């Protein structure tokens, strides 16, 4: 059993009242294989970010399970999930960068606790920044970057540790067409490296892009596979 699988995944916000019947997500069944790029689209508020957070182990599902390589990750203890998350690269919709740190330091963050020589860490940072066209911004504080640069920096941070599972939430936000094309190239490269790549976006440019293996749509809390 390889890749990521979710089975009858359901999520209701913990602060929902008993009478609030609407689940954010319900009955999500999907399989994401290594070396594939999947796109999950849907309107704002459809639950795309929630789905990514569930897949990354940041949220605990109300019911159902998330499996990685046949292991039910969603049932793991928090400390095991923390360790598993080292295989996961995540691009948040709101970037979640540390603004007072430089771009390079932000990319370094996921690498610090890993058993890597410092020189290798710095090489990985430089490589990741170069791939998202931010090599010249390595020493700039993240807070001074533009919205598009910040989003690309978030992608650089996610790919620097060469994750086996890459989850990207609206990665093309604030990007012009050329930058979006460059970003797609990065995602393709990750897919070709063998990673499971899942992108959530309502950007039509991504929906039309070539090289996407599976297209899903979130509709009323359910995942519909388009192709």
């Amino acid at each position, binding site marked *: 059993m390889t890749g990521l699988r979710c089975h009858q995944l359901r999520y209701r916000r913990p602060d929902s009242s008993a009478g609030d019947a609407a689940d954010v997500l319900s009955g999500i069944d999907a399989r994401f294989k290594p070396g594939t790029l999947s796109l999950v689209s849907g309107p704002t508020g459809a639950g795309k970010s929630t789905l990514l*957070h569930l897949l*990354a182990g*940041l*949220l605990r599902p109300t019911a159902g399970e998330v499996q990685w390589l046949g292991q039910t990750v969603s049932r793991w203890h*928090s*400390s095991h999930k*923390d*360790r598993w*998350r*080292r*295989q*996961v690269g*995540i691009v*948040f919709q*709101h970037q*979640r960068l*540390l603004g*007072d*740190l430089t771009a390079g*330091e932000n990319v*370094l*963050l*996921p*690498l*610090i*606790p*890993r058993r*890597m020589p*410092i*020189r290798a*860490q710095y090489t990985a940072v430089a490589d990741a920044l170069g791939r998202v066209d931010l090599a010249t911004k390595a020493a700039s504080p993240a807070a001074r970057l533009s919205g598009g640069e910040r989003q690309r920096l978030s992608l650089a*941070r996610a790919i620097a*540790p060469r994750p086996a599972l890459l989850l990207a939430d609206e990665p093309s936000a604030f990007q012009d067409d050329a930058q979006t094309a460059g970003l797609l190239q990065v995602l393709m490269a990750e897919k070709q490296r063998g990673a499971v790549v899942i992108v959530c976006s309502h950007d039509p440019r991504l929906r039309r892009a070539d090289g996407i293996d599976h297209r899903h749509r979130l509709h009323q809390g359910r995942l519909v596979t388009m192709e």
Partner: protein
Amino acid sequence: MIHRWCPPMLIWAARDLARHPWRHLATALTLFALALLLGGTQLVRLAFVETSAHLLAKAPAIVIRRAAPTGWVPIPITAAERAAAKVPGALTPHPRLWGLARIAGQTVVVMASPPAAEPARGRKGPAPGTVITGNGVAAVKTGDRLVFDGHPQRSLAVVGQLPAETAAAAHDLVLMHPDDARALLDIPPGHASDLAIEVFHETAIEALANDLAGAFPWPVQIRHRTTEVGRTLAGWERRATLATMIYAPALLALVALGLTSAVSSERASAQSGLLRALGWTGRDFMRLHLWRWAVVCLPSVGLGLASAYLVAFAPGVRWPGPLLFGWTATPPPFYLSAAGSAAVLLQAAALVALPYLAIVVLTGLRHSSSDPHMLMEEGLR
């Protein structure tokens, strides 16, 4: 180059601390001050207790004075020695000639050297008409003449000074020939200031003191070494306790401040949530916080304790004179004993560093055990 030898987590801990330099500098200064205050208090206490005990160990086991309604009167040497000889266990009774005199408004301790009044028993001291002085006596130097107040005034030649290392015991001491001391202190021939007695074993002191009290044909005051040691210890314990009372609230304030910031910092929570989303484990957080503790706490506490050590044991320190004993005029230099200071330093280091370590560990535990999504959301609110 430095990066090659430093663990990445240590570099990150230092970088993380540098993001809020003033806050951590204030913490470091507080820890430094606490270590200096607590270590200094305990080391000074230890130094004076050790030095006093060392000096008292050289003092006579029992000293007997003849009591009088006015205080004391000279003791007849022959009768006193005979009375002491009747008490089994009272060894080598020896009369001493000493007292207080004034030189240009300064009170000094005058002592005959050799101490026995008569005969001199083979020991050499200053020749008649000459004195050897401690370092704090009226700013005189060898070759000067020392003029004692009184009627008539007496003038003795200074032929030497005691070494500075003896100042703790002999700062205001003037050693002179027994004949000069007798004349200056107005003690008649055949009499002495008191009678010093040695004992075979320290444990016999108190019992012998009781026996000696009844052996003399006149009322006597008896002082013995064990009570003097006890009094000295109690005095220093009292001083140290008072000083520690200042330290305790300061430490509590530090703990409260640390706990408050650990619990309430939403920004720190958001950062921890993000780092956990990026693959940091609880163990990584503990490593980070322990490195942060090491970077802030160890140098501060180390410097604080080193300063405390210098305050207490730097050769020739003069501050204890005016501050602890009220000796404003020519305070003596102290050369204090550092025996046992390692244990005190360790204890002080533990008392300052461990509460801060507890705060750090609690913060690390909180950030490593909470839900990462919730921590990130806290930071957004």
